[in-house]
């Protein structure tokens, strides 16, 4: 009897081998990444890839790493993710907001595979969402911008009108205004995340209008180049440190650092402790990095910005602390009140003092 079972098992294994069924290697965890851009875009995708590589480096032979770049959002994304799941991936990170519905759809077909979607809001039993509190970094940029500007005009190259970008503008404005009540913000929307030509045009237009600080929520270094050519204009690195443009025009930066999160989540899969979570980390957890503040910034301003960075990291200061009114003058946060995450996640209004409308 026992012998027969053994034979049957053997036959089963042989059959599986003959059919080429995906034999799930128990010892190695297969980690997949889906990127919206090329891995050398210098910004968003490059930093996800860079963080992924650090994760791979951390685990060494314990993980198998696969990725696909330049995946268009929409039905093609759904296929790319499915392909990766069919290929035996244990956990798949989809690193663009536009991959939200495709990720949810594919996840429903592969209940045993874990999915991690960046910057979305739809969760499922096997889909986690994660994002970074970039507005914390914007508070520091705003402080520096308010301190260094001489024309009191600050330019902002905005990408796509979504809460994430609007939060950044509001946070930067509030903190610039706090240290310099005369500042005014000029916002240009380019409706794209990465387009060096448009970014350069926007930077030039802002500089021509008298802005001597240009903030950007777009991924390329083109605005830095434009600022460098114009001279006397301050900029901030976005997603990457962009230190090659320091000490002028680049005086600091917001750096996306996903590697601690990636390491933690892959470790959870290895340990079998993975569960669906909604993560929104900032400077404190190391997800948002503040690039070295260059010597072009006066020492007091630098110290002030660094103190704010440390206070945010320690949790003693929140960039959205009342009193804050909305653009139309209605009250949003009372004195000392701190914005809740729900309001922040769906933020679709400018705060009082910013001119212009959010495009819709």
């Amino acid at each position, binding site marked *: 009897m026992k012998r027969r079972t053994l034979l049957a098992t053997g036959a089963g294994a042989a059959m599986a081998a003959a059919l080429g069924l995906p034999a799930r290697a128990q010892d190695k965890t297969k980690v997949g990444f889906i990127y919206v851009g090329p891995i050398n875009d210098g910004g968003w995708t490059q930093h996800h890839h860079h963080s992924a590589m650090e994760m791979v480096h951390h685990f060494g032979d314990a993980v198998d790493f696969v990725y*696909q770049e330049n995946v268009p959002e929409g039905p093609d994304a759904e296929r*790319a993710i499915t392909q*990766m799941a069919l290929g035996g991936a244990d956990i798949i990170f989809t690193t663009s907001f536009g991959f939200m519905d495709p990720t949810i759809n594919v996840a429903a077909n592969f209940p045993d595979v874990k999915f991690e979607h960046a910057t979305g809001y739809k969760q499922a039993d096997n889909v986690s969402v994660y994002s970074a509190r970039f507005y914390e970094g914007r508070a520091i940029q705003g402080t520096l911008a308010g301190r260094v500007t001489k024309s009191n005009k600050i330019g902002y190259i905005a990408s*796509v009108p979504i809460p994430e970008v609007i939060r950044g503008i509001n946070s930067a404005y509030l903190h610039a205004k706090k240290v310099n009540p005369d500042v005014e913000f000029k916002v240009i929307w380019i409706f794209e995340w990465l387009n060096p030509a448009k970014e350069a045009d926007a930077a030039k237009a802002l500089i021509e209008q008298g802005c001597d600080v240009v903030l950007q929520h777009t991924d390329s270094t083109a605005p830095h180049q434009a600022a460098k050519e114009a001279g006397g204009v301050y900029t901030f690195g976005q997603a990457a440190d962009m230190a090659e443009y320091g000490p002028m025009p680049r005086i600091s930066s917001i750096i996306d650092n996903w590697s601690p999160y990636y390491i933690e989540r892959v470790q959870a899969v290895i340990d079998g402790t993975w569960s669906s979570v909604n993560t929104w980390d900032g400077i404190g957890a190391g997800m948002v990095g503040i690039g070295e503040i260059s010597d072009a910034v006066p020492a007091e301003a630098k110290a002030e910005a660094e103190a704010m960075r440390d206070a945010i990291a320690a949790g003693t200061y929140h960039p959205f602390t009342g009193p804050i009114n909305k653009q139309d003058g209605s009250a949003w946060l009372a004195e000392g009140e701190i914005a809740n995450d729900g309001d922040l996640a769906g933020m679709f209004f400018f705060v009082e003092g910013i001119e212009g409308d959010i495009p*819709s």
Partner: protein
Amino acid sequence: MLRLEKRPQPSKNWSYGAPLLAVVLTIILGMGLFAILGKDPVIAIKTIFWDPVFGQFAHFYRPEVVKKAAPLVLIAVGLSFGFRAGIWNIGAEGQYIIGAICGAGVALAVYPYDTRWVLFPLMIVAGALGGFLWAMIPALLRVFFKTNEILVSLMLVYVAEVLIKAFSIGLLRNPEGYGMPGSRNLRQYPAAANLDLISGTGFHWGALTAVFAVVVAYVMFTRHQFGFNVRLAGQSPRAAGFAGVNANKLIIVCLGLSGAMAGLAGLFEVAGPSGQILGSFPSYYGFTAIIVAFLGRLNPIGILLAGLLMALTYIGGQAAEAQLNLPSAAILTFQGMLLFCLLAVDVLTNYRFKIGKAEVR
């Protein structure tokens, strides 16, 4: 000496043989490309052309090929009428986008109205009408002001791309989407969804319409006066004039027809595989369909085959990217080679190689 000699008549054999030879040449050149990139060329080609249809996960890939081919075939069949008549609608992509906006707009306007047999046909009409009207812009401008329809229709693509971006963050934005761009997902709206007619086959209403269009176009070209007029106008506009073909009417009909079919393709895509009005909705089907139309020799059956082949290079190409870690640019290059080879080989349709010196006349 090898030289080219013009054939007295375009070769019928070569007009069918050229696409096949082009495919073979592309495969050979592609293998060279993949080899230079350090990948096993045989495995790369197998991953692109064989695996999606017969490989281990063919059950997943086959429906994907159908879904990808459906809009290509539908648009290309529409374009073939104009192209045969010498009317160049290069802006099918724009008509495709506008069709999607109009069709989805109808559904989103009445959300959550749930009588499918009223709503879905209305969406189809709106999609076709949207594409038709967008194509009427270059058509009427050409008829009344003699503008160049190539230029006008192409420029309108960029207008349409801006429009869909504006709609995705404005009028059609999902009110429950936390301020993110994009409309509600029509696939999760049962009365409006364009789902598989037979589950798991990828054969949705758009694919059915594409097959229907192929059959109708075939009958038109071979049996109907209109098909004859179209061909006549393309081969000899003067003769067409003598035969009583109204050139202006032909422009309006050809552009309108191709626009309506592109609009339909857009509607079926937005209600099905794509699901959402989104800035990233345009996926160049309208431009790829031009390649498909010519690869298929402007013949409906040829277009059907060419559409399936083109879809296969997309699906297989993406699979190769993922499995062999090929850069996405390599796949685009590979697809570009296909058109390049076709154009190169097409010389043989009108010319033949001769060995020896040119005869003295």
